C-alpha cells in the first residue's frame, strides 16, 4: 500500500503540510511526447491536506511553470465568495515515497499562504488519512 508519513515540529500550528511536487497529468505527458515537445520536470511545492476542500488546488504560477492548459471551468464557493469560476488542470501530485495521485486541480491564488497547493477530498477519496496530533504526525495511504 503506497503511503507516506510526515512529522512536523508543530502540526497544530503548521497544519498537515507536505513537501511534494506537482507534475503534468499522464495524458498531457503523452500529448507532449506525441508533439515532440519536452516534458517539464515536476515542480516542487508545499501542499496542505485540506479536508474542507472539495477539490485540490494549485497556484497559477505552478500551472504556468508546467505549461499546463485548462481543460475545465468550475464554480467555487468559499466563506467570502460565491460562484467564482476557476480553471481546472490535469495534474499528477507526487508525494514522498513516490506516491503519485492524478487529479483535476483547480487554479486559485492561495495568496498570502505558505503553501502552493491544497490537497483536497478528490485525493483523499482514494486513500486513508491518519492524523496523530499528539506526536505531530500524519500518514496518507492509498
Amino acid at each position, binding site marked *: 500500500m503506497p503511503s507516506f508519513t510526515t512529522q512536523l515540529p508543530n502540526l497544530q500550528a503548521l497544519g498537515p503540510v507536505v513537501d511534494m511536487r506537482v507534475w503534468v497529468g499522464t495524458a498531457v505527458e503523452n500529448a507532449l511526447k506525441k508533439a515532440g515537445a519536452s516534458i517539464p520536470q515536476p515542480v516542487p511545492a508545499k501542499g496542505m491536506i485540506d479536508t474542507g476542500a472539495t477539490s485540490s488546488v494549485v497556484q497559477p504560477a505552478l500551472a504556468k511553470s508546467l505549461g499546463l492548459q485548462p*481543460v475545465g471551468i468550475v464554480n467555487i464557493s468559499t466563506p467570502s465568495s460565491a460562484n467564482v469560476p476557476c480553471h481546472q488542470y490535469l495534474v499528477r501530485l507526487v508525494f514522498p515515497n513516490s506516491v503519485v495521485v492524478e487529479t483535476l486541480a483547480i487554479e486559485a491564488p492561495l495568496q498570502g499562504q505558505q503553501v502552493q497547493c491544497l490537497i483536497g477530498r478528490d485525493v483523499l477519496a482514494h486513500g486513508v488519512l491518519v492524523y496523530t496530533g499528539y506526536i505531530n504526525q500524519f500518514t496518507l495511504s492509498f
Partner: protein
Amino acid sequence: MPDQLSQELGTYEANIDALLGAHEGKFILIYQDRILGAFDNQMDAITRGYDELGNVPFLVKLVTKVDVPLSFVSNLLAV
C-alpha cells in the same frame, strides 16, 4: 471569468437545450465552437481531448441543468 475557455463556455451555453436533451449527465468535449463528443466518464473526455487536440485549452463540461459550485470551507484560496 477567466479569459481562456470563454469561447468554449459560450459554445456550451449556446447549445445547452440540445445538450440537455441528448446528453444530460454526460461530459461534453468542446474546442472553440466545436462540440467534439459526449462521454460517460470525465477522464475519457479529457484523454480524448489531449489525443485529438494536443496540449491546448479545451473544455470538458458536465451537461447539467444546474451547476453546483465546489465548496471550500476556508478562505485559503483567496478568491
